[in-house]
């Protein structure tokens, strides 16, 4: 298809670079630099999509991010697909595929269009009032039907083929917006020695001034666009100025922290994009921020104002002046202000037919004079009361307005057109300003909200600050920047600007009609189909706050987030309620300014980089020996080591037996290790553990239990006294970081008088734990110089040692109940230590075991695991560990809480053992325990915390917490499962070697 509507030459497109693309399966052509919208318009395509609720045909309305209608699916069904892309922002590339959304079977013939006919019955909020009867139909019919109509585009169904990343950026001055005021600001900033960044969302700078080719607008006697072209060239040579095109500020947080998305790829053909960077999120800290975010044009609200071919006047101007595309051959401009006359003049210059309808009675602007001189017909004091044309506007009906503007009078006149440009004035884009915490003020004259007081070091300039005339914009930008930046170097002081002064616009938020409102469809939110009627209905029903009205009518909830609709909603509320608009306040402008891709927000933190993986120095050995791993916090721990065809159960049974029968070895490197030094180290331990530490001999180890201040068990581990004032504390794997933080907190804030120094050494040492009756023999081989008898090296003691010249610490401590040793060595020798242990243990069949076997072995001994057998609600007494709570100590963390009425209750849940009546039946961890299954409601006494089949006892064993468990030994209880009930008996929780004879075996 040829481009019938490309009527004029333009320097902004690369005419040597013709690009083909597909829209709804049909091939079209455009040029490099075209947006999808401009390219489609150049081919005469206006109908783009269907609205959300009524499925009315809709066309391109704007040329930017405020577009409510022309949103499309990009990239077909492949992995590059993306829903809800604004055709007005998408640059075309060779091979681009785009299709209409929310229509079936096609955008021309859409079954959903039936909604338009039932629209009288489905006003705003109708769904709150119906679909309630009969109740069961809600699930089978009503809700499924509602969901069927949900959504616009389609979610991708394949992983993303492109990459994203993050970068931090620090600068003196950040200028947001590359229109004329942003360009001047950036230039002043850079000239005054500030490290400056200028961000603009388009692919080139200049805003709307770069295509302002009108004799009416001059700077230093040059046409404004030529003057600006030179300035843009100058900017490129400033060494301390960075310009970021195709970059959009998404959010402006407190303390001048801004997020901006830079787009690298969306304008490139797909074959150049696979596995390459698509977008980058800039995390910006700026000392000062200058907002030059511009303004967007307001539509006018009248009956059937939504047809394809109804566009904003300023957009029509951009399409002709920037893209060289005419949006119609018979244009009508409908306005309440002077700026739309620029569009009329532009179209007329290109020989395109244009007529103007102005709701005002007159205007003395030079623009109007130029228009009249060109012979363009202007209908003063007229308004549009209806439009026609289903897939494209065909004609309009206009009527004269009454003297006070509240009604229409006289006869209707019908005018033929194929494009209707509307202009209701301008709305400053104060989104970023308010996101940063700024407060707005209201200017009555043109009914705009403007920046008032800012929370951080920033200013707003240009039209986002309410300046709409070129001379004001330039003059105020210069003076504001001068002040804000304390600038001394100013090139602009002598600028001479001439531009037409504007007359006051006439603001009527809802234009009058000859028909009652109920019979008309004046749209506010084009995407969500909310009309002025809906706003009035909401108010009639008592929804008075703007937020209520917005939510009830869904106004401003579309993908454009109300950039076009919100002001009109406020305006109509104010007109209807007779309340001053400024007193209504606005809805909250929430980030992001334009929708932000999830991938961009996440950056590289996906897949492998989702979270840090911590591996022990022996990790590769475990991997080489086919270990299965378990995630414990960020750690990868060897879980069990299956041999060829072994199941997990078989492997664990084998490992558990081996450890008790001869020798086993466990990688215990992940346990948290805190080095504690200082003259008050013993006193410190006294305060953080429940038991006493002062009398612990040098070279001795002791188990400690740590509570929260609310008396509940928090962590545990063995601490060794290395020397008089030097301890090594171990913590649980998962608790290490929190324990250190907690100890530092107490030390710095509650007990600063203590001379204690804490250092985390978890990663400094690797730990191999060798256990079993032959552990002593293995250690003897490794450390021939140490005497491994109970006198010289008793249980719960430590020795410094050397392994082939490398220093180690050996602790004789046991978590399995076996005679056992933990060898600590500098991390880099960890794997070597492990291999030497394996070597030395070969003839004793030393068997590596993982966390599962460790859990099983300690359960046989009734040792708890904090976090598995406790859940933040267990006191030491609940764990039957009263022995570890010092009665003598005056205080320790959590002590006072143990003496509250509930913590002293005798019948709290307490740790017990459970034996199944059928010894081969293994209880499920987490299963609940009851006494009487029949009594309703069933009283749950507790639950199974740990459960295993013990190969060493040849029966199933379990640990559990049970109400009043201390007094229930021998009691028969029930564990009700989904399909059966298991009979159990309460037992002691130490199942194996209750006299601890094996420790010294």
């Amino acid at each position, binding site marked *: 298809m040829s481009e019938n509507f490309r009527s004029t030459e333009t320097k902004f497109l690369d005419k040597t670079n013709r690009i083909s693309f597909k829209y709804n399966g049909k091939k079209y052509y455009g040029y490099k630099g075209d947006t999808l919208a401009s390219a489609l318009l150049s081919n005469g395509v206006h109908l783009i999509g269907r609205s959300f609720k009524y499925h009315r045909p809709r066309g391109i309305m704007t040329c930017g991010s405020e577009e409510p209608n022309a949103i499309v699916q990009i990239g077909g069904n492949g992995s590059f697909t993306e829903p809800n892309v604004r055709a007005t922002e998408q640059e075309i590339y060779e091979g681009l595929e785009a299709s209409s959304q929310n229509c079936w079977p096609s955008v021309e013939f859409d079954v959903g269009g039936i909604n338009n006919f039932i629209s009288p019955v489905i006003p705003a909020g109708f769904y709150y009032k119906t679909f309630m009867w009969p109740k069961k139909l809600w699930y089978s019919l009503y809700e499924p039907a509602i969901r069927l109509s949900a959504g616009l585009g389609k979610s991708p169904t394949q992983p993303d083929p492109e990459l994203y990343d993050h970068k931090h950026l620090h600068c003196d001055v950040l200028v947001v917006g590359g229109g004329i005021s942003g360009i001047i600001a950036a230039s002043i900033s850079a000239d005054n020695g500030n490290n400056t960044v200028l961000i603009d969302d388009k692919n080139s700078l200049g805003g709307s001034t770069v295509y302002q080719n009108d004799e009416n607008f001059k700077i230093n006697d040059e046409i404004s666009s030529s003057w600006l072209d030179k300035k843009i060239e100058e900017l490129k040579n400033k060494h301390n100025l960075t310009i970021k095109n195709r970059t959009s500020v998404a959010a402006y*947080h*407190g*303390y001048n*922290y801004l997020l901006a998305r830079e787009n690298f790829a969306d304008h490139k053909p797909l074959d150049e994009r696979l596995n390459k960077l698509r977008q980058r999120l800039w995390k910006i*800290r700026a000392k000062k921020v200058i907002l030059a975010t511009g303004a967007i044009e307001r539509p006018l609200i009248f009956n059937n104002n939504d047809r394809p071919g109804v566009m904003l006047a300023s957009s029509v101007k951009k399409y002709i002046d920037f893209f060289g595309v005419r949006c119609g051959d018979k244009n009508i401009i409908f306005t309440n202000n002077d700026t739309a006359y620029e569009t009329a003049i532009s179209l007329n210059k290109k020989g395109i037919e244009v007529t103007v309808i102005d709701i005002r009675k007159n205007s003395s602007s030079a623009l109007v004079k130029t228009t009249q001189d060109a012979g363009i017909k202007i209908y003063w004091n007229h308004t549009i009361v209806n439009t026609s044309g289903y897939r494209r506007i065909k004609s309009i009906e206009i009527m004269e307005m009454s003297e006070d503007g509240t009604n229409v009078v006289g006869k209707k006149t019908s005018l033929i057109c194929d494009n209707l440009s509307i202009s209701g004035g301008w709305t400053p884009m104060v989104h970023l300003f308010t996101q940063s*915490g700024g407060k707005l003020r209201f200017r009555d004259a043109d009914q705009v909200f403007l920046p008032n007081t800012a*929370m951080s070091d920033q200013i707003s300039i240009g039209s986002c600050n309410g300046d709409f005339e070129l001379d004001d914009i330039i003059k105020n930008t210069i003076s504001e920047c001068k002040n804000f930046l304390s600038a001394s170097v100013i090139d602009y002081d002598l600028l001479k600007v001439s531009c037409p002064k504007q007359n006051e616009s006439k603001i009527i938020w809802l234009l009058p009609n000859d028909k009652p409102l109920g019979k008309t469809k004046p749209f506010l939110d084009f995407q969500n189909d909310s009309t002025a009627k809906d706003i009035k209905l909401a108010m009639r029903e008592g929804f008075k706050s703007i937020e209520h009205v917005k939510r009830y009518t869904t106004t401003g909830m579309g993908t454009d987030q109300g950039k076009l609709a919100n002001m009109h909603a406020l305006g109509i509320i104010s007109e209807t309620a007779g309340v001053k608009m400024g007193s209504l306040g606005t809805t909250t402008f929430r980030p992001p300014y334009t929708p932000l891709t999830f991938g961009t927000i996440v950056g590289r933190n996906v897949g492998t980089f989702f979270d840090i993986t911590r591996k022990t120095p022996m990790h590769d050995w475990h991997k080489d020996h086919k270990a299965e791993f378990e995630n414990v916090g960020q750690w990868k721990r060897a879980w069990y080591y299956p041999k060829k065809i072994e199941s997990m159960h078989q492997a664990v049974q084998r490992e558990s037996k081996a450890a008790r029968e001869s020798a086993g070895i466990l990688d215990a490197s992940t346990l948290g290790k805190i080095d504690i030094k200082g003259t008050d180290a013993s006193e410190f331990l006294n305060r953080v553990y429940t038991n006493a530490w002062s009398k612990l001999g040098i070279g001795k180890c002791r188990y400690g239990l740590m509570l929260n*201040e*609310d008396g509940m068990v928090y962590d545990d581990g063995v601490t060794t006294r290395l020397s008089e004032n030097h301890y090594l504390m171990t913590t649980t794997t998962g608790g290490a970081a929190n324990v250190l*933080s907690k100890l*530092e*907190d107490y030390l*710095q*804030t*509650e007990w*600063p008088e203590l001379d204690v120094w804490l250092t985390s050494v978890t990663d400094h040492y690797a730990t191999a734990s060798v256990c079993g009756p032959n552990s002593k023999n293995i250690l003897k081989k490794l450390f021939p110089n140490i005497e491994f008898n109970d006198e010289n090296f008793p249980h719960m003691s430590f020795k410094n040692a050397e392994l082939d010249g490398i220093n180690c610490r050996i602790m004789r401590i046991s978590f399995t109940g076996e005679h056992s040793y933990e060898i600590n060595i500098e991390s880099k020798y960890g794997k070597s230590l492990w291999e030497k242990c394996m070597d030395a243990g070969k003839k004793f069949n030393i068997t590596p075991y993982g966390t599962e076997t460790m859990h099983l072995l300690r359960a046989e001994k009734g040792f708890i695991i904090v976090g598995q057998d406790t859940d933040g609600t267990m006191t030491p007494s609940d764990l039957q560990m009263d022995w570890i709570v010092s009665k003598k100590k*005056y*205080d320790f963390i959590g*002590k*006072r*809480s143990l*003496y*509250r*009425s509930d913590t002293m209750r005798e019948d709290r849940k307490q740790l017990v053992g459970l034996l199944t009546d059928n010894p081969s039946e293994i209880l499920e961890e987490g299963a609940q325990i009851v006494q009487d299954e029949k009594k309703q409601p069933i009283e749950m006494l507790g639950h199974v915390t740990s459960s295993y089949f013990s190969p060493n006892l040849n029966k199933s064993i379990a640990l559990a917490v049970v109400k009043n468990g201390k007094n229930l030994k021998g009691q028969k209880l029930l564990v009700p499962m989904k399909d059966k009930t298991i009979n159990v008996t309460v037992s002691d929780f130490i199942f194996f070697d209750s006299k601890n004879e094996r420790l010294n075996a």
Partner: protein
Amino acid sequence: MFIINCPFCGERDQSEFSAGGEAHIVRPKQPTELTDDEWADFLFMRKNIKGIQFERWNHSHGCRKWFNVIRDTSNDKIHAVYKMGEKPPSN
């Protein structure tokens, strides 16, 4: 995300710090002397002020020092920072 002026390291991004709640809640020197109500007061009850709040922060991804911050919780504006044990700056 605010910037916190660590009294030991200078201005750093909030993401380097951890919040530690209301400041100047001194752990009782003799907990056993307290009634259950008084202990609960220390343990759980908080002013949770909307407005100027004195609170503790820890430079957990920096020097790991605890210090105090005076922050307006209604707008997150930080008015002062001072070290543990120091008196809050007046005004």
